């Protein structure tokens, strides 16, 4: 069966986040990394904007060199916490389409959407939506590649960077790879490339025409693997993160909200989603975090830790509301709301046992609701308090 793999790679991620957070940097060369100290700095470039790349600056380059190439650039320190926060939002978007998300780094991931077609449409459509949602919710661009396997998807996402969107269908694989240089192969560095060149192999097309044994004789074990890749064969699976450290859901409104009733309803809807996911993973969380982004993109997170892990919608909603009520709004409009539970534990893991056992009927009811939704979809059963609501949310 043909798989559908998507590779998502954020464009100049750290630099792009800085440009977004500081509109004054937009369109200007931004270099994130060590302090250049007027050319005497000793660290390296962590990331740079495309404007800086035009001057020949690239990541991992010594900061002193970058300073010489582009002294007028905006040099910024690495704000890892901030990038992680943004990254979480992006991974949240990716996980809307499948739970088979394999993060490669803070700003890069593989998705296996083979099974998502019935729910979300064709893989190309999913790729397009992911790009659009990342832009709409985070104001950042991603390059996306859609292909039958990881190898091609990764090349595809890189093909038209930045803001690229490249689809390689099964029948197009051969043509797509044909003229690519062998350096596109993972694990092919200068040395291997030189060996291949000595054989007269410069492109993947040329490599594909060589018999596997002949290549293996010269390159060893890896040769066979490279041959397969050059023919577009790569069956490595997408391996989702072992165990989620937190389970959450968030949503961005199509119109920034200041209606408290709608906000409360949204929190209820998010609590429902988180609760269902917790049950699916057979877990509960003791730290609840509320994320709130205002229309001006200022983002706040507030959390609280409870003594007993919670998983029921009502409990999550109550805590989220309590957190929300402590945030002074000062009339600001809300753009995004999110709820996440962390410090996850299963029912049998160590911890305080409640004195008053939870009503088992509540849990049973929640499970019944999950089952109804599994059979008839999200709208199969709806809380009465959410019936009247116009969701105003851009996404599920």
């Amino acid at each position, binding site marked *: 069966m043909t798989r559908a793999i998507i590779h998502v790679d954020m464009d100049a991620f750290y630099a792009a986040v800085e440009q977004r957070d500081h509109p004054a940097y937009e369109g200007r060369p931004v270099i994130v990394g060590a302090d250049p100290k007027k050319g005497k700095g000793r660290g390296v470039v962590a990331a740079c904007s495309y404007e800086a790349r035009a001057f020949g600056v690239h990541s991992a380059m010594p900061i002193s060199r970058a300073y010489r190439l582009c002294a007028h650039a905006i040099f910024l320190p690495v704000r890892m916490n901030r990038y992680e926060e943004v990254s979480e939002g992006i991974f949240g978007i990716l996980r809307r389409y499948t739970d088979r998300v394999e993060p490669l780094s803070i700003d890069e991931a593989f998705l296996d959407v083979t099974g998502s077609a019935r729910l979300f449409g064709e893989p190309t459509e999913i790729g397009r939506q992911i790009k659009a949602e990342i832009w709409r919710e985070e104001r950042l661009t991603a390059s996306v590649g859609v292909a039958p396997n990881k190898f091609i998807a990764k090349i595809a996402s890189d093909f038209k960077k930045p803001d690229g969107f490249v689809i390689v269908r099964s029948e197009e694989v051969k043509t797509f790879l044909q003229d690519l240089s062998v350096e596109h192969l993972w694990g092919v560095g200068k040395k291997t490339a030189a060996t291949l060149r000595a054989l007269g192999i410069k492109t993947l097309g040329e490599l594909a025409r060589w018999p596997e044994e002949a290549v293996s004789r010269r390159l060893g074990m890896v040769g066979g693997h490279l041959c397969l890749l050059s023919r577009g064969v790569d069956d490595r699976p997408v391996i989702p993160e072992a165990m989620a450290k937190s389970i959450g859901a968030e949503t961005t409104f199509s119109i920034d909200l200041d209606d408290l009733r709608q906000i409360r309803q949204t929190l209820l809807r998010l609590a429902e989603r988180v609760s269902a996911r917790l049950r699916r993973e057979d877990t509960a969380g003791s730290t609840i975090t509320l994320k709130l982004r205002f229309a001006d993109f200022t983002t706040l997170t507030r959390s609280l830790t*409870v*003594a007993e892990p919670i998983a029921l919608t009502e409990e999550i909603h109550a805590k989220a509301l309590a957190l929300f009520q402590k945030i002074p709004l000062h009339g600001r409009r809300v753009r995004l709301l999110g709820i996440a539970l962390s410090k996850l534990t299963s029912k049998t893991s*160590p*911890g*305080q046992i409640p004195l*008053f056992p939870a009503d088992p009927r509540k849990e049973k009811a929640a499970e019944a609701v999950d089952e109804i939704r599994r059979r008839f979809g999200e709208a199969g059963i709806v809380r009465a308090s959410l019936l009247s609501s116009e969701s105003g949310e851009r996404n599920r």
Partner: protein
Amino acid sequence: MHAQVARNSFLSTLAQVQGVIEAKRTIPILSHLLLEAKGNTITLSGTDLDVSMQTSLFGEVKQEGAVAISGKKLYEIVRELPDAPIDLRWEEGQNVQIVCAKSSFRLKGITPEEFPALPHIPEGAGITIAAETLRTMIPKTLFAVSTDQTRPTLTGALLQAAEGELSMVATDGHRLSLVKAPIHAAKAGGAIEAIIPRKALAELGKMLKEETGDVRLVPLDHQIAFLLNGSRLITRLIEGQFPNYEQVLPSPSGPGALLRREDLLGALRRASTISGDRATPTVLELKADRLLISCKNIDLGEAKEELSMEYRGPETTVGFSVRYLLDFLGVVDETEVSMHIHDPLSPALFEPKKGEGFSCVIMPMRI
């Protein structure tokens, strides 16, 4: 208004009343205390609209009247004044004048009409209990009151009076404390069932401090009043259903384990230095005549203690949050405590040896 009071008694009265007034000044008048001079008494009142306290002291009243003054400032000033008579004087449209020995202050005052009226308390209604008895009940329940605002009914102690008995119970959902005492049978009135907020309990404790005599409890509409020797505390009640606590009270079967309070307290305190936060269980291993206490903290290391005890039940191992055990031991007056542990997943019962109507139920932690 014009009156004279003794500094020391004024200060202790102020200390009592100013505890209830609002720390955050959202409504200015709530950060004020009402001073009323009438006959030969000065009455001080403070309120945060939920809890109100009123108490009076002897004063030489030269001109009757009343005024509201910033409670915090008045308290700070009086605290620093020498032990000499304090002269308080106020006239409409002027500042309040406070003169003591060679010090004098002028403070802004607010007309008494702006101060919220305290509810009228009907004469002779309610039930009575010895102040000393009620005073000892408060610390035995206050520690178990929840601070989790998302479970409002647990943020107070349930007070129940019926059939010649007064009981108070508090729980945070992990442990529960229950204390009972007889009411003066002759004066027993109607039944009372009310959830008293934590703050009111704490302030009531202060009001009863060093007092003798009887406290009168008067149920009002959504409120309850406590009256004692000219002082009164009125509190709003927490609405809602207190959990059915009787269903989790374990019935003590057999004699349980008997331990010296001091020994257990010392051992647990030492073990608690390792336990760190609430998430780490302290493990109790009950053997014949011996109790092994241990606590392992992956980040720090471990602690082990051994105590001798009287125990004839089956050997068992159970984990607890050490804080809950310490909280209980901290309010026990007796030298020996009993411990009834059924199994590692059921509520355990802790009591002073002689009982005395005090029980603490602690739910174990899963180890």
